[in-house]
């Protein structure tokens, strides 16, 4: 494979949220605690790829995406977008950059302003970024709407007049209107019905090709991520545990967490029913993390080493990264439960 151009690069990125202290904590001089939503993540997003970000709720995938867009401020580390360091840019400096990075949110019912027609919404956006002359705006809006499968009539209507799937198309149109390089799609299909979900996934794939888009696709649905992504990044409690090409990750499942996550998805075959759940308990709180590997309290393979020192994310060949001392190809391993 030829060397791909990096669009986004993060280096040791950290986003911590401080926890509000009670007055007694000040008196007792208890140290300030943090929720470590993103803890030391270094990833690269290449141009024109779809990178799937998966993990359970609360693992920091949305925070990571929002930090890349500078919607959350990073605590430490560095974010580079297209070769420019944007970690400490002011809002004013960021404005021209924002055009290149757009976001599609999960819930199309709350991400569109209910009191603005679709036409006005897109117009405001195009004029704000000075993307076309006022007399061309209408034509441009029609072009964008056609691309996402809507027609001219939509420009005069309000978001409430559309169904969930149509609203998500509009949200995508809004993101595309400014001709961005990077689109972050945060669970864009999880609020939709299966038949509509497939329409939106196909649309995103087509748009990626036509616009040379880079998409960071956040989801908890593994079948969706397998379908749409070129590479997958699996997160657990603020850390990347496995990163690699989609099929490699799905077939080899080097990290035990990836394996359990993939096996947890309910099988469509009623004959494959297991008696016991694959993994018990919940992820630990991101405030009081266990020492060593974060997954060790729930991991079937944990050893003494895992309980004391945290494993590093390392390349195991074929651009496949994993953070585990005991990584192995899990595709043929039978879990003994």
């Amino acid at each position, binding site marked *: 494979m030829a060397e791909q151009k990096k669009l986004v690069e993060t280096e040791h990125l950290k986003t911590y949220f401080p926890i509000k202290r009670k007055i007694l904590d000040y008196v007792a001089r208890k140290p300030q605690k943090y929720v470590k939503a993103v803890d030391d993540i270094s990833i690269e997003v290449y141009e024109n790829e779809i990178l799937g970000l998966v993990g359970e709720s609360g693992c920091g995938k949305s925070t990571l995406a929002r930090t890349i867009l500078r919607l959350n401020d990073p605590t430490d580390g560095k974010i580079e977008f297209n070769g420019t360091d944007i970690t400490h840019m002011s809002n004013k400096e960021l404005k021209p950059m924002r055009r290149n990075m757009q976001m599609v949110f999960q819930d199309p019912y709350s991400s569109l302003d209910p009191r603005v027609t679709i036409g006005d919404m897109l117009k405001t956006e195009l004029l704000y970024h000075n993307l076309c002359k006022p007399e061309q705006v209408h034509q441009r809006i029609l072009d964008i709407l056609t691309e996402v499968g809507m027609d001219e009539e939509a420009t005069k209507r309000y978001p409430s007049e559309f169904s969930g799937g149509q609203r998500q198309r509009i949200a995508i149109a809004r993101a595309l209107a400014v001709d961005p390089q990077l689109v972050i799609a945060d669970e864009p299909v999880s609020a939709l*019905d299966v038949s509509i979900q497939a329409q939106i996934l196909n649309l995103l794939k087509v748009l990626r090709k036509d616009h040379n888009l880079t998409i960071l696709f956040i989801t908890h649905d593994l079948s969706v991520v397998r379908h749409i992504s070129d590479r997958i990044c699996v997160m657990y409690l603020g850390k990347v545990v496995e990163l690699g090409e989609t099929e490699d990750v799905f077939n080899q499942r080097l990290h035990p967490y990836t394996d359990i996550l993939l096996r947890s998805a309910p099988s469509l075959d*009623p004959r494959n029913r297991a008696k016991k759940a694959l993994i018990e308990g919940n992820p630990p709180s991101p405030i009081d993390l266990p020492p060593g590997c974060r997954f060790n309290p729930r991991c079937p393979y944990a050893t003494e080493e895992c309980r004391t020192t945290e494993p590093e994310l390392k390349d195991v060949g074929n651009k496949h990264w994993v953070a585990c001392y005991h990584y192995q190809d899990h595709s043929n391993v039978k879990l003994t439960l």
Partner: protein
Amino acid sequence: MKDERNLLEVEGLCIHFETNGYDVQAVQDVTFSIKKGEAMGFVGESGCGKSTTSRAIIRLLAKNANIPAGKIIYKDQDVLKMSQDELRKYRGKEVGMIFQEPMTALNPVLTIRTQMYEQFRGKDMSKEEKEKRAIELLRLVGIPSPEKRLDEYIHQFSGGMRQRAMIAIVLAGEPKLLIADEPTTALDVTIQDQIIKLINNLREELDMGVLLITHDLGVISQVCDKVAVMYAGFFVEETDTLTLMAHPMHPYTKGLIDAIPNGMTEELKPIPGNTPSLIDLPNGCPFSPRCFMCEEICTKEIPPMVEVDPGHFSRCHFAERMRGYKGVIDLDEEGKE
């Protein structure tokens, strides 16, 4: 088979809602039965009437609902003719219901203990017996340190634990039939896996009937013996779970199965169009505008539910044409794992 009698029988049920002068036909001509210890599933997209049907079974419909036709018989009792007094004995003790959102279904200002004890009302139990039983139930659903958690409020629980707490409270009434309305939709896959296994084990231990409502065919596969596919208020197909996954006989079921990303196909095959509005259903078969094999008769006559194979019903004029279509699993192949 132990007890061949039906626990619940629903016959020709129709439910209409009156809103703003419109007559919304939410459920039309629904017939099914559930035996003791049997698990049935309803699957369909939002607005197809699956939740409405389940709510009718415990008479929880809104005031503007009316039932112009149909019968709901629970153990020789006509549920639709029950008095408030009879309903009080029926709900909770005979039929229990768990909802998608434990946070809204349970009372946030009462402790788990109080809500659990409500279920014991009318039973001749001493304080100690109640406490013992409550702790036993919490342990049964897998809540750690139940003695402590009994006096906590629902907001102190995590998502998966909330769902477990709700299941425990419902089980306290010792229902013979458990209705679960999207019990795992808001949960992560690993937690979903735990809840599925929990429902399966409880059903076996307590010999409960289960009615599971979901939009996820995977969850259906893992829990249900038989399944009904709903579309725009109609049952469009009904059969045992294995047959449905292997040989669907209705074009809508086929569409639903094809729309699930399975990692094999490059492009998904979504069902074109959107679900119809229940106020203004298309003439004839409700699925006809989206159906790939729609013919003239489909736009004129609502097809009857026909038995295409013993125990396999399909509501399609051309169900026979679906013969030979392979679903998502192959019956000749052994189930994996």
